[in-house]
């Protein structure tokens, strides 16, 4: 089964918190994704809606001076893992979430191998992008690699 893993970081990853963030996001990108959805932009850019008072963004265009009062931005150094190929199969070993319900465009926050991660659910054949707290990054990557390399389920599936 073909699965590739790659670990990286996102230079402009930022969490926005505060009031009237929809307005800010609108001015940055021209639209606002629905709750727990994301929109993709070029150069790994994206903007994800985590609720009326929170957005996770990776946009080179964003600058702190665009913030109004009661708006806060905090840099994020998440470890970002890209999984290409049959990522759903790999996830079935480490994540209880039923990915049958995950649709492209969804921003999913879920536990993977005991660590909280976020994911950008991609189109069918595209690469999954997931991020986690940087201090868990080495553990998560190591764990996923190990599962990928050793699991009989990834080689044979559940069917005999």
């Amino acid at each position: 089964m073909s699965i590739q893993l790659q670990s990286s970081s996102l230079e402009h990853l930022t969490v926005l918190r505060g009031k009237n963030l929809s307005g800010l996001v609108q001015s940055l990108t021209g639209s606002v994704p629905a709750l727990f959805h994301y929109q993709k932009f070029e150069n790994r850019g994206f903007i994800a809606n985590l609720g009326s008072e929170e957005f996770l963004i990776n946009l080179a265009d964003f600058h702190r001076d665009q913030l109004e009062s009661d708006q806060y931005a905090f840099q994020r150094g998440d470890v970002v893992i890209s999984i290409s190929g049959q990522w759903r199969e790999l996830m079935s070993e480490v994540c209880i979430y039923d990915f049958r319900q995950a649709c492209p465009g969804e921003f999913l926050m879920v536990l993977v191998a005991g660590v909280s991660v976020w994911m950008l659910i991609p189109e069918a054949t595209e690469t999954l992008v997931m991020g986690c707290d940087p201090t868990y990054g080495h553990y998560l990557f190591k764990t996923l690699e190990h599962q990928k390399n050793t699991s009989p389920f990834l080689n044979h599936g559940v069917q005999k």
Partner: protein
Amino acid sequence: MKFIDCPPIGRRALSEFVYGGLVKHEPDHENVSESVWAEHVFYRHSHPQIQKEWWYHRPTGMWFFFERDTLTDVIHHVSVATKGYANEA
């Protein structure tokens, strides 16, 4: 192992949640008697019943209210814990 339908985050496994205890109404600190306070802190009727509980969803950091039957473990109602909700009604 259970799945719970949690608007707005969908059908989620209970293993993603942390139990946060009963939803209780804290007495006013200014005028509370010692016995009322002790009752609030310690005492309750904890027989099997449907009770309203705090449950924390770890990946999103959201608090939910579950109305759960402590006899059958059936969760009858789920809602996002809205601000100030616990102090109402």
